[in-house]
């Protein structure tokens, strides 16, 4: 059984349902002892910014901000797609805990030894 798990999220306020469920599944993975990566790309890179997730809460789910914070506190890592980040002119000095801006090679490296990946 692979000891790594990746969740790829491509949505933020354009689909808060997908963004939320992505982090719920990521928390299930990190809570199950997996080395867990959330890859934020396309619109989801906005979730890497402090304050952006404030006020987002899907019915029946914890607030998105809390899900992201719990993920980082449990040891989860977030990779933020560099070109998506730059395209949106986001602030590298305003990243949430656990997030870092990376290029595609870092994602490829993480997945290359057989990590499963689920996408939202």
């Amino acid at each position: 059984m692979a000891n790594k798990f990746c969740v790829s999220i491509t949505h933020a306020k354009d689909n808060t349902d997908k963004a939320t469920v992505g982090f719920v599944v990521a928390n299930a993975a990190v809570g199950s002892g997996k080395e867990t990566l959330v890859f934020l790309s396309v619109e989801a890179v906005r979730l890497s910014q402090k304050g952006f997730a404030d006020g987002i809460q899907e019915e029946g789910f914890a607030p998105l901000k809390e899900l992201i914070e719990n993920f980082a506190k449990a040891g989860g890592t977030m990779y933020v797609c560099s070109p998506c980040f730059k395209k949106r002119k986001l602030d590298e000095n305003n990243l949430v805990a656990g997030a870092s801006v990376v290029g595609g090679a870092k994602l490829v490296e993480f997945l290359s030894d057989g990590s499963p990946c689920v996408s939202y």
Partner: protein
Amino acid sequence: MSTERMADVEWNAGDLGCGDLVLQLMLRMKAMAPGQVLRLTALDPGAPADIPAWCRMTGHTLLEEHPPTYLIRRKPKET
């Protein structure tokens, strides 16, 4: 019936489910000493499938399962 067995720690997770449930479960297990037993109450409809899977992945021992109650023994050593 056999969930009457002694537990060192009790946790009523209420309606917590999916990632919220197992993340909190992991943190509570980490706070316990190796070999201690947790009596968990989890009402989420996914819990009867998730709790045994979580135990298989993490190495903790599911001593008993009588949904919504589960007895879990913490593994000897955290890895």
